[in-house]
Structures are given as C-alpha cells and as structure tokens.
C-alpha cells in the first residue's frame, strides 16, 4: 500500500518537497538570516557569493533601459544554463510556488468533473509567447519591468517570504481562473515566464521517453498532464517528449502502470532508437 502510494506519487512528493524546501530556505534567509540562499526567485545569492537571477526579469530590465550589472548578468546566465541543461520547464513544476496553486485547481477540476461540463478549450497555448513579446514591449515603452509588476509568481513568492498583504487575492484569482475559466489556464496558456523557460529549455537533457510497445493506451498520462499536447506520441510511436512546453513534472511517468513512460537522457534514448531501426 505504502509502496504503491510512493510509486504513484513519487515525483509529486519530491516536487512538493523541493518547492517547500526552497521556500523554507528563502524564509530562513529573511527571517533567521541564513546565508544559504537569500533573496527570492527574482534574484538571490547562494552562500553569499553565487548570484542567481531570473533571466526573464533581466531581459525586461534590459528592455526598460536599466544598466545591467555584472552580478545580474552572471546570475541570469547561471540560471539560463541550468534550465537549459535540466530541460523544459523544470522550474515550473519543481520550483515555482504557483504550480502548487494551479495543480490544486486542476485536481479539483478533475474531482468535480468540470472538464466534462466544459470540454472546449477556447484559448490557445501560444498566448504565452505573445505575453513574452508584450512584457518586453511594455517594459520598453513604460520604462519599468512590466511583467514583474503583475507577476503572480513573484507576488506569491514574496508573499510567502516577506509577508502576504493582499497577496492571497492574486493567488485566489489564479486558482479560480484555472478552476472555472480555463483548464491549465495560467501555467499552460498565459504565463510568459513559463513560455520563456519553455523556449530556453527546448534543448534540455532530461526528457520523458515513451515506449510504445509497453503502452496499453489507458491514457491516464494524458489526463494528468498539464500540457497534454506534448504527449501526442502516446500509444502511437516510441518517441521522446521533446516539446519545450513539457514541465518535467513526471506525473505521466508515475501514473503509468505499464512502464511505457520514463525519464531519460536526451541523447541516450536517441541512440537506443537508432539501434532499433
């Protein structure tokens, strides 16, 4: 029973663990002055020496006409390379606190069978790429970091670390939006930061691999996947999930009872496929 639970929720548990651990360390940095990691997801300092910066915020600052300091540039580069290697939007499902909110909304959506009531998804998942463009254009025009002033990600994260104010309203808006208006609305359609990491992480090394031979076409994976379009190959073809929109959340891997989906390293799997051919 316990091992069953672990098998079916292992990545979810690990993700909640990394998300909470990071928040806990950031809170410690603020409240108890721990020097392990200070700041927040926009910009932080690791061990008091290694700068880590949100590359999308840095891009907006550049567009807004701010002088980019070495510290900021290096920090943004480290994060960019990190997610480039790790792949996809690992940030979204393993770090971002909004993920917990939207996952909760999506969970409730399934439990209430809201998906049956509202089958049609009226919005395009490409909105996020427009949002990236708008963030930069508006930053340029207004001379401020446009997305950073509305970003529910930083609002949520700051609320947790520095005190909440009315920050809970922003969280509630995201929750209700995802629950009642659009399935996977914020993270899957609108969030420009997610879109940005999707583009950055396109070449990522850690990828979900589908083995069609084992697949029984139960489609549990597509039900839980927040970006189900990336699993187009399921039950059709043995392929790696190479779409940048995949968040590497591993839900598909853990719900699969047939060992048809697993994490893999990008290159290795391709070689394996070549051997098969």
């Amino acid at each position, binding site marked *: 029973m316990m091992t069953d639970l672990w098998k079916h929720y292992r990545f979810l548990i690990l993700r909640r663990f990394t998300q909470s651990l990071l928040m806990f360390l950031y809170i410690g940095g603020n409240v108890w002055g721990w020097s392990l990691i200070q700041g927040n997801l926009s910009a932080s300092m690791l061990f008091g020496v290694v700068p880590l910066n949100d590359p999308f915020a840095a891009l907006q600052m550049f567009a807004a006409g701010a002088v980019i*300091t070495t510290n900021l540039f290096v920090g943004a580069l480290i994060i960019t390379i990190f997610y480039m290697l790790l792949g996809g939007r690992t940030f979204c499902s393993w770090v971002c606190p909004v993920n917990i909110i939207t996952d909760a909304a999506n969970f409730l959506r399934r439990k209430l069978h809201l998906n049956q009531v509202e089958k049609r998804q009226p919005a395009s998942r490409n909105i996020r790429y427009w949002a990236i463009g708008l963030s930069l254009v508006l930053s340029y025009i*207004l001379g401020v970091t446009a997305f950073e002033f509305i970003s529910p990600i930083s609002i949520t994260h700051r609320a947790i670390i520095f005190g909440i104010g009315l920050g809970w309203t922003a969280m509630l808006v995201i929750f209700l939006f995802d629950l009642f208006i659009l399935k996977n609305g914020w993270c899957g359609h609108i969030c420009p930061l997610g879109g940005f990491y999707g583009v950055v992480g396109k070449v990522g090394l850690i990828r979900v691999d589908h083995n069609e031979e084992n697949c029984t076409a139960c489609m549990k994976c597509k039900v839980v996947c927040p970006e189900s379009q990336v699993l187009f190959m399921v039950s059709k073809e043995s392929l790696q999930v190479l779409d940048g929109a995949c968040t590497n959340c591993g839900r598909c891997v853990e719900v699969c009872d047939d060992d048809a989906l697993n994490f893999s390293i990008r290159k290795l799997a391709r070689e394996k496929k070549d051997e098969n051919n």
Partner: protein
Amino acid sequence: MVDERRKFILSIARSIGLASLGGLVWSAYVDEVTANKLILRPPGALKEEEFLATCIKCGMCVEACPFDTLLLASPGSNKPLGTPYFEPRDVPCYMCPDIPCVPVCPTGALNESSVTTDGELDINIADMGVAVIDDKNCIAFWGIQCDACYRACPLLDKAIYLEYEKNERTGKHAFLKPIVNSDFCTGCGLCERACVTEKAAIFVLPKEIALGAVGNHYIKGWDKKDESRLKDAESHITTTNLSKNSAVDTLNDMGGLLDDD
C-alpha cells in the same frame, strides 16, 4: 464557408487585437501602480524612474536591514509592487555606517557610489528624502519647549538646527524653533519617529516632492563656487531696434472711449 486565406488573416487580426487589448489593460495597470511618488526608498536608491526600471524586487536589502526598517511593497499597500520602502514614523532608517542594505543589491538599483565618499561608504550623504516641518502644528513654534527632533537627528546641528527667537507673547521666554537644512538632511526619519505630536509635525518627503528648483538662470554672485559657473559663459549682445512709432498713452488717452461731446 470561410477560405483558408481569410481564416489566416482573421486569426492574425484576432491575435493582434487581443494583444493590443491585453497590452492596454496591462500598461494602464502598471502605469497606475508605479505612479506613487510619495514613497521613501532605501539609501543610495537611483532616481525613482530609473529605480523602477532597475529594481528586481528580490528583497535582499530588506533582509540585510538589521532594524527591519525596510519593507517590500505587498499587494494592498498601494505602492509599486515588490519594491523596497520604509515608513519612518513606524521604523526610521538608523543610518548604519556600513549601510548593509546597499552593497547586497544585485542590480545597482541601490547605487553604492552614491553613498561613497573617498572610497568609503558614507551614510551621511544618503539622499532618501528631506524632513519638512509643519510649523503650525509644531509645539516648539508655539513656544513650548521641545527639541525632540533636534536631539534625535543623527546630523544634529547640521540637518536640524535650532533658531532662537524672543517670545513676544510672554516677554520672558524664547522660541527654540527647529529648522531643517536640506543640504544635509538625509531623510532618515529619526525626527519624524521622535516627534511628540499625535501626527508627526516633522515628516520626511521625497526631495522631488518637497523641494523647489531655482533653475539655471540664477547665480549666487556671493558664492565663489556658484559664481564659477559663469567662467566659460559666452555673452550674446542683442540689439533691439527701437520702434519709430510714438508711444501709446494707455493710461490717459481715452481715444474716443468716452463720449465727450
């Protein structure tokens, strides 16, 4: 039946339309929330406009502040979201000599060089704001002895000094009036914190709000430094051609306005 070409053009138009709609709402919101000019920034902050472009809202200055003076604007505080500020009546800036909040800034929104004299951090040249006195509600201006703000000032006798004046009403007392010298005031707000009136009669405002600006046309001829601005000044001699017309007597010439006949 809509053909492919029309479908394509329509979908492009729709995307552009939606993007403009989103962009307008978004920019209107951002413009509103960044419009708050009555906000006090940490020491060394860039000018408000540049500050808003440069601050990444990480809160490391807030974490570095040992007095919990600095806060990050949260939703509902009606201040530019996520940016650091302080409210001196609650907790003023205690002007730490090592200014821990400034060097930690990763983006230079808090500019170290603006609080550095001769290669050393110097909080005394910080420029967070300027104290302003409401002399109608300051009891020292009533003639009651109070020098709370004066004593609280870390730059005592420079940023706040006392002006003595005879109290004609009693004939035997003196006014000890606190006066702020904006050349020295850093805007730390210790005076605002110390003020004994129910709502502080001395309070810190951003300099752009509280101070006027003379402009370039006036030069203090008695001030060597100011006078030196004239050193390389070029003079232009302009000549105005005198009018050949006779002067118009606007005061006495009724020019047919009155009916004298």
